[in-house]
Structures are given as C-alpha cells and as structure tokens.
C-alpha cells in the first residue's frame, strides 16, 4: 500500500495531467492526419511574423477549441427536454473524469489499486458514453436522434469486443485490479494473449472514439453534426472536454492492461508516452486510409468478425487461466 497522502495528491494532480495529455494526443492525431493528407495541420511553430497575433504554437489547439466554446453563448432549444439536455454533458464529463481516476499513470496507481477497479472503470466509461447519447436524444433534433441511434448501435457492438478483450487479460492474470494487471509479470503466454487481445481492443476503441471507418455517429455529410447538432457553447465544450478525457482514459487503460509494466513506475514514463503515441499512430493510419462504413456494415463487422475473435480470445484466456 502506498502512502494515502500521496494518493490524494496524485488524485488531484492526475486531472490536469490527463487533460494535458489528452489534448496532446488529440493534437498529435490531428497533426498526423493532416500530414498524411498532404498538408500541414495545426502549426507546431507559427510563422515568425504572425506570432504576435496567432500565438507561438498550436500544440494546445484542442484546448483552445474547448476554451473558446466556453466563452460562447449557449443556446438551449425550445423543443428539447431541458433538464436532461443541460445535465447530460456535465454528467458525461463527470463519469469520464471518474474513469480517469481509476486508470493508473506511471508512478501514480490512483484508485486502480481498489478491488474490482477494472469493472468500475469499464462501467464509468460506459456511463460516460451513455450520457453522450442521452443528451442528444433530449435535444429534439432529428439529426441528433439519428446520430444517437447510430451511437447506441455502435456502442453496443463495440462494447462487446472491448469488454471481452479487456477481461480476457484480467482472467488470464487472475485479477480484476488494474494496478495488479499493469505491474504483472510477463510470461510468453500472457504476452501473446496481450498482443491478440490488444489488437481486438484497438478495433473496439475505433468504435468508441469514432475513428473511421466507424464514425457514423458524426457522419458530417449524412446527418449534419450527428448527436451534437443542437449543442452549442459551454455544453458543446463540455462534450469536447469529455472526448479529451475519454481519449486519455482509453489509451491509458490500453497501456496498463495490455502493455505491462509501462504504467507501473515513473521510470517508464517516456516509454508510456511513446506507446501512447504509437497507438495513436495506428489509429490515425486507419483513420486516413478508410472511408466511413454504413452502420449496417459496421455492425456486421463488429458482430461477425470482432465478436467471434473476441470470444475465441476469451476462451483461450480461460484456458490459460485454468490450465497453465
């Protein structure tokens, strides 16, 4: 057990760290896709003569977007169910932040030492996504409704792969505490399992993070801005903030579950960041290479390919747990 004071301090510290890293991840994502698309993307180093006006760097571009949204007027549509419409973004953000607290950061075990932390973290992530669906449904816009429906379908099918792949590792390691998984010993079988399960998790993450070809909920050309069509100002900013934390949380969870011991000690921090960026690189590559699937194709893909693989993977994990 680590010092409780340290835990409290780290709980406070992790939120800005998660925000910063999430923003950096998003920036990296945008920059990399831009470079793949033959262009420059948000500038890392602004042109000399434009610096006084436009700032020296755009490393924090996603954060600026969010801050700007907080400075804008928030419109609540007449036809919406107002309480749900207004509260959903905040609840979503709250659950995302709570999830962040359960995910270890190098040198900071946080709440991931708690029993059943893996289950709690998964539930919190699900709750957060749930509120990104409930708010739009309450907004009364048909586009938001279609977007939310797609989001539900996608969420249900991708969740299957997500849960199965995460818990397969947990079962093989015989623990439901994230911290214990992340500092666990590596054996050959476990490493192999991590690779297969990790690949499945990546595929499931694409659905959760709306990476192409699974970005139907936000399909611009089809359903305007999808779930967020009616949101503006602070509420939209909150949703964007949720996305930042979500990205951090998912990447953090991935590393701590599938790439132990990177999240277990402060010494691993550089490697932790490198691994995170590598994951993002893979996601970006998928994003730039693919157009969007139809929702039907996506569900088919998740159910027929990913789910079956995930079940097989899970069975192997159970085998490892029972036999080896």
């Amino acid at each position, binding site marked *: 057990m680590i010092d409780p004071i340290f835990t409290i301090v780290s709980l406070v510290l992790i939120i800005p760290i998660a925000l910063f890293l999430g923003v950096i991840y998003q920036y990296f994502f945008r920059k990399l896709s*831009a470079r793949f698309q033959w262009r420059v993307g948000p*500038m890392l180093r602004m042109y000399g003569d434009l610096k006084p006006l436009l700032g020296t760097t755009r490393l924090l571009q996603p954060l600026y977007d969010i801050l700007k949204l907080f400075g804008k007027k928030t419109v609540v549509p007449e036809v919406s169910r107002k309480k749900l419409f207004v509260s959903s973004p905040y609840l979503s953000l709250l659950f995302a932040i709570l999830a962040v607290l359960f995910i270890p950061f190098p040198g900071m075990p946080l709440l991931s030492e708690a029993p059943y932390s893996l289950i709690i973290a998964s539930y919190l992530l699900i709750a957060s996504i749930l509120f990104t669906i409930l708010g739009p449904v309450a907004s009364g816009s048909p586009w938001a409704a279609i977007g939310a429906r797609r989001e539900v379908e996608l969420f249900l099918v991708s969740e299957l792969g997500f849960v199965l792949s995460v818990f397969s590792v947990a079962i093989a390691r015989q623990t439901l505490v994230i911290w214990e998984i992340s500092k666990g010993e590596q054996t050959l079988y476990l490493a192999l399992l991590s690779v297969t399960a990790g690949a499945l998790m990546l595929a499931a993450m694409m659905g959760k993070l709306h990476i192409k070809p699974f970005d139907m909920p936000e399909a611009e050309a089809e359903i305007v801005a999808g779930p967020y069509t009616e949101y503006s100002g602070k509420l939209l900013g909150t949703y964007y903030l949720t996305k930042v934390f979500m990205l951090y949380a998912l990447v953090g969870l991935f590393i701590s579950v599938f790439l132990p011991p990177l999240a277990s000690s402060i010494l691993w921090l550089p490697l932790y960041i490198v691994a995170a960026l590598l994951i993002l690189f893979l996601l970006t590559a998928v994003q730039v290479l693919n157009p969007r699937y139809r929702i039907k194709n996506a569900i088919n893909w998740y159910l027929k390919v990913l789910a079956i693989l995930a079940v097989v993977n899970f069975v192997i994990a159970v085998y490892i747990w029972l036999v080896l």
Partner: protein
Amino acid sequence: MGIIDKARIYSPWLYHLHCGGCNGCDIETLAALAPRFDVERFGIQLVPSPRHADILLTTGCVPKQFIPMVKRIYEQVPDPKVVVAVGSCACGGSLFYDDAPENYAILGSPDLLIPVDVYVPGCAPKPEAIINGVVQGILKLAEKASKKE
C-alpha cells in the same frame, strides 16, 4: 486579454452559408481547406452545424426564396459571431442585382438581411483573399467579444 479571448482568436469555426451564387466562391472556400491553403494551420475549421460556428461565411447573392433561411441560420449562430461576405455577389449583388428594372428573383446582397462585418470582393476571390478576409473577421470577433464584457 484573457485566455478565452485568446482562444477565440486561435480557434475560429466557420459555417459556410451558400445563399445562391454561382458556386464559384463556394469551391474557392472549400479550396481554402484543401492542402494548398490548409486553413487548419490556424485552427480554422468548417463545421456542419451553425450552432457551433463563430464565423458565418456567406457566398452569393440572396434569391428571394432564400430570405427566411438566411435569417434563420444567422439567428442560429450563437454570440459572439461575425459575418464574412465572400465574393462580389455577397458584397453588392454583382451581376445579378439590377436596380431598374429590379430583378424579380434576387433580393441583393445578404447585408440587406443580416449585419455583415467583413466584405471580400472578388469574382471569385482567390482562396488567399478568402483567408485574408477570414483573418480580418477573426480580429473583429475578438473586438466584439471584448466590447460585450
């Protein structure tokens, strides 16, 4: 200048409102997003919903059938907002506007309906000129926001 005001300058989001011109300015606006001019360098993004926008970029003269839509979309953009009129049609009606006898189908430039903050004449303006106009719009946006506070 507060951090939010700075963020406003750093992250202007555009909503592209095509009022009814010839499409020329619209493709030039899109070309400003394309690799050659890539406005994402400065954090400028094209958003699909007017609710998310800071800058309303209008192109084309307004046909009378479009009057209600133009007003409605302007009202949907949350404050503080700036309107940038791109192209000669959006500035002064250009070819399509006739005073005597009046063109029965065309109302004229959008500034008859909504307040326009920056005019970018050109037929069609080069994407560079559009970027220049949007940058002026960003400055206006910061000015407007600071006045309100």
